């Protein structure tokens, strides 16, 4: 069993004396990220909702990136992926990422196409 833990996060920027301390440190960070998300979600700054990056609001990009950051720390530190062999880690992480990116790409492009048809095509939607 992997009893030894790697006791640093943020690429060694934040080091801990014990595994218990690292857990509380990660909790503090996750709480902070969630709080930032909620505050942004309630106030929705006009600067972020008005700016579009790659066809999506900047605010939504921020939400998605913060979510991935949270997912990283949950799986790396709570699920101990940080302490597993890198081959196992890659097998677990990249398999879903590849499949999900593919699925999401296909579905969203198709949905956007249907949206355009409803909007500009000859299908009457405004009953």
């Amino acid at each position, binding site marked *: 069993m992997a009893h030894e833990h790697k006791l640093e996060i943020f690429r060694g920027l934040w080091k801990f004396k014990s595994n218990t301390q690292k857990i509380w440190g990660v909790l503090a960070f996750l709480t902070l990220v969630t709080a930032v998300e909620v505050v942004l979600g309630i106030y929705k700054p006009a600067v972020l909702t008005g700016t579009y990056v790659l066809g999506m609001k900047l605010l939504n990009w921020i939400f998605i990136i913060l979510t991935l950051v*949270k997912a990283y720390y949950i799986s790396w530190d*709570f*699920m101990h992926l940080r302490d597993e062999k890198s081959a196992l880690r890659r097998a*677990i992480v990249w398999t*879903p990422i590849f499949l*999900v990116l593919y699925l*999401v790409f296909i579905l*969203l492009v198709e*949905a956007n196409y249907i949206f355009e048809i409803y909007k500009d095509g000859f299908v009457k939607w405004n009953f």
Partner: protein
Amino acid sequence: MDTTVTTEIKENAWGGGNRPLGASYGKLMMWFFLVSDALTFSGFLAAYGFSRFKFMETWPIADEVFTHVPFFHGNYPMIYVAFMTFILIMSSVTMVLAVDAGHKMKKNAVIWYMFATIIGGAIFVGSQAWEWATFIRGDYGAVETKGGRILQFVDAETGNRVALADFAKTIPSERVAHKENNGIWFYGEGTRTSFTVNEVIEGFKANPSLAIKTETINEEGEKVVLSRQESLSKLADASQVVEGANLIHNEYGSRLFADFFFFITGFHGFHVFSGVVINLIIFFNVVLGTYERRGHYEMVEKVGLYWHFVDLVWVFVFTFFYLV
């Protein structure tokens, strides 16, 4: 068999005790399950994204749907879901602390951390049940047009939602109960609402301060409020009153929103529930000293993986359902 063994371990590869990738059999199988479950949830969320992109301009705004906090009146968007998220992260922390205590063979610490985890999970499931109940009951009520669009009522000046009960007139009318002998026998009677469409329409005409909010989202990302004249002509299409949400009607807007809400948070809630049950089983095993006798607490680690996964999924559900 000796020709198939390529590891440095001198044991028989099929006799057990062999640990590919340095992880035990049980943990590897848990990871197999979690990856496939992650793909299932991804499928649901991708389907949600599909429907949302398809109806991009009419999709409900989550901030306007989930505005309630138990025991408090008023408009508090996001607050309660944020609380639920924190509860789940917190129970993830107590779980990982239990795993850590298990590595150090501290039985009592494992018991208390597992207990805290179970309590956290129970609070989360309870909160989700409350959220469902609130969503199903609805708050202001709306009318549905013949084409299936939802029209909500707002104060024309402030833009605040107005409940049907605040303006609908009471018009006495005869109601004929639908029975097999006076109607089509295989049709049910349908749900009775607090007001008839006629009562709502007459009440709307009598209150000049009211206007109608449509499902359409404008450039600023807000729902379009019609002028008084447009509202009156739109209301002529009204076909029925909708209070609350179910799989067929949804007073908050697109019915697909309600369908996905029930489906995705329901599936996640089911995971939390089963997680609590599995945690309870392991909890009792810890109390009985099963793992103390076995010499290691790996079972706690394995249910811990499942529990963290439930938290991980919620992080994504939270983002795609409530934030984005």
